[in-house]
């Protein structure tokens, strides 16, 4: 089964890439876009019959995929 994990910088942390994307979109005339934040999506395969899927994903996020000082994640 495919797992999708969305990782983003916490709200209180400035995300300069999003700010620049917003500026470029505004320059293109898309002036209704605001508060853009860029994150990252990680996809991985897990066995269908994995019993503790949630805690397994939590573990890999805590141990490597996510730096909890600056990032938060959700499983899509």
């Amino acid at each position: 089964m495919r797992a999708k994990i969305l990782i983003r910088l916490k709200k209180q942390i400035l995300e300069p890439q999003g700010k620049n994307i917003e500026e470029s979109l505004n320059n293109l005339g898309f002036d209704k876009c605001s508060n853009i934040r860029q994150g990252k999506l990680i996809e991985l395969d897990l066995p269908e019959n994995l019993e503790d899927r949630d805690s397994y994903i939590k573990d890999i996020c805590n141990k490597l995929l996510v730096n909890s000082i600056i990032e938060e994640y959700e499983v899509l």
Partner: protein
Amino acid sequence: MSLSSAVITFPGSNCDRDAQTYLEILTNQDTHKIWHKDVLLPKVDLLIIPGGFSFGDYLRSGAMAAKSPIIDDVLKHAERGGYIIGICNGFQILTEIGLLDGALNRNVKLKFLAKNCFIKKNHENNFNKKISQDQCLSIPVAHNEGSYYNSEEGLKLLQDNEQISFLYCDEEGNTTDSSNLNGSLNHIAGITNKKKNVLGLMPHPERAFQDFHTSQDGQLILESLLG
């Protein structure tokens, strides 16, 4: 004092040779070269985790290097009270390991910064005791993710425990907005752990110590350790 030392190389490290030269010239003895897949460090006084782009900065700067086989022994070295200096990517690796608190984010202006900057000493420790309080050091930086971040509580702990070693400043030592070149929290350029035997800093002292360098201020950090 004689100081034995080692430098760890990860795939993508590119300041390991500079760090080795910095150590060998200033300590006047050979430096051990360690590969990240080694599992044992030699018994040394000082370990440098050098700058570069370990593992291509994949996932987050320093995230992969923090899981290398040598890291278990790096933790033991720190626990024994051995000195560690993490420079640039080395600083990022030390925060990912958890030896230093906080994290290093993308520079606020999204530019890779490669220039000289000025830093000054803040809290005194064994890495900066040869630097006077009003002295400004000219040292190069070269990084894309150098904007230091910590939570409010984390920052308070750093201040209460006097762990903030270096601040970005201008030539006169003022901590102005424009001297905080990467947007670091409270101008932080370098911090130590609570025990003050582990230092992480974004500027490169190993690029500022020889006659042909534009500045020789970087030697003050190692000379502080040499006593």
